[in-house]
């Protein structure tokens, strides 16, 4: 005859806890590695050019000193050390989901060209990141448009004015303008990091420690 001894409330709670605890041994709590993409939404967003920022826009943000976004260089450490856009952080492509980036951050991704950043963009979108953008055509475009702007042959007055502005921007970032040359012209020298403009993070007062993230979540 099976007799369940009459347990007090507390004893029942204890048994319940032990049962749930024992079952929990089999739990798998790590988030999966699949992503969910709303394909339509994705394509529309690309179509509307809501997936990227242009080098000119990014240059302007950096000059203005905006810090409401994170600029992420997805190349490897060596490439990053050779040259990176000022204010960028290095998060190599394979580690982009490892936790450095929060889902609510505004993020601009760039690589050498367009492809890798776009791949990272898609993965982040698929994991629910809402404010991710790529730098249109990556470092290649950064070099062409920001660092080494080209004055077209026979420029119109508007083009001349625009070029003047680009020259200022180029100087800011340690680059230099070039005239439109035939293919095979003088090679462009990348500004070294030392020559890169000082867009240092705001200096901390003496005795200060790096502050916490903006959205405080501690206790």
């Amino acid at each position, binding site marked *: 005859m099976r007799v369940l001894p009459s347990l007090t409330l507390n004893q029942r709670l204890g048994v319940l806890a032990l049962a749930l605890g024992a079952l929990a041994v089999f739990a798998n709590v790590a988030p999966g590695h699949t992503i969910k993409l709303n394909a339509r939404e994705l394509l529309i967003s690309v179509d509307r050019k809501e997936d990227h920022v242009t080098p000119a826009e990014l240059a302007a943000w950096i000059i203005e000193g905006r810090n409401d976004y994170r600029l992420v260089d997805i190349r490897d450490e060596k490439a990053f050390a050779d040259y990176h856009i000022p204010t960028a952080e290095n998060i190599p492509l394979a580690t982009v989901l490892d936790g450095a980036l929060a889902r609510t951050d505004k993020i601009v991704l760039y690589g050498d060209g367009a492809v890798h950043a776009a791949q990272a963009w898609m993965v982040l979108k698929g994991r629910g990141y809402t404010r991710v953008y790529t730098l249109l055509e990556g470092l290649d475009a950064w070099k062409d448009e920001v660092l080494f702007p080209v004055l077209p042959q026979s420029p119109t007055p508007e083009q001349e004015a625009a070029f003047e502005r680009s020259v200022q921007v180029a100087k800011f970032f340690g680059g230099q303008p070039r005239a439109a040359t035939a293919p095979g012209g003088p090679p462009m020298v990348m500004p070294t990091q030392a020559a890169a403009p000082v867009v240092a993070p705001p200096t901390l007062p003496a005795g*200060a420690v790096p*502050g916490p993230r903006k959205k405080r979540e501690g*206790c």
Partner: protein
Amino acid sequence: MASVTHDVVPEAAAERAPAAQPYTNPYLAGIGLGLVLLAAFVLVGRGLGASGAFNSSIAWLVSLVAPGYARSNAFLAGYLEGGTHPLKAWLVFEVAGAFVGALLSGLLAGRVALAVEKGPRVSVAARLVLAFVGGSLMAVGAALARGCTSGQALTGGSLLNLGSWVFMMCVFGGAYAVAFFVRRQWR
């Protein structure tokens, strides 16, 4: 201070308040607390806390009196940046709610009374001084540890956070180590 169920309406209030109800079964209260914590995890992705609300409030007060200093103080500046008012912080609202919730529970149980919790061998004045001292010590401890018993121990404990468990053990250790020396206040 004997049994678990009937206890501890402070002597001063005993004459005024109607007989207070015994406290809830601690395990049931704990389950309730745990579910509230779980709700915080599920709704907002963070846990409970209290000391952070004090940090925000102090940061705000200092910023009223000496805004330049407040912004340059590395500890306070963290609560003042980001453009939002320091009192529009999650923990400030949570602690405000805690006040209301405790009042509600106290009213339901007849345990709201103007009183001073203390043992028979110490004066009210001494108790209040010790409460102040204890509070300030706690504040230092909580600031160093990035949290207090609700934030670090409860929240971090349930998330198996390393620092939280270490912290929790030290809290119990520190309290037990000193309890003997301050027993006069309580017994």
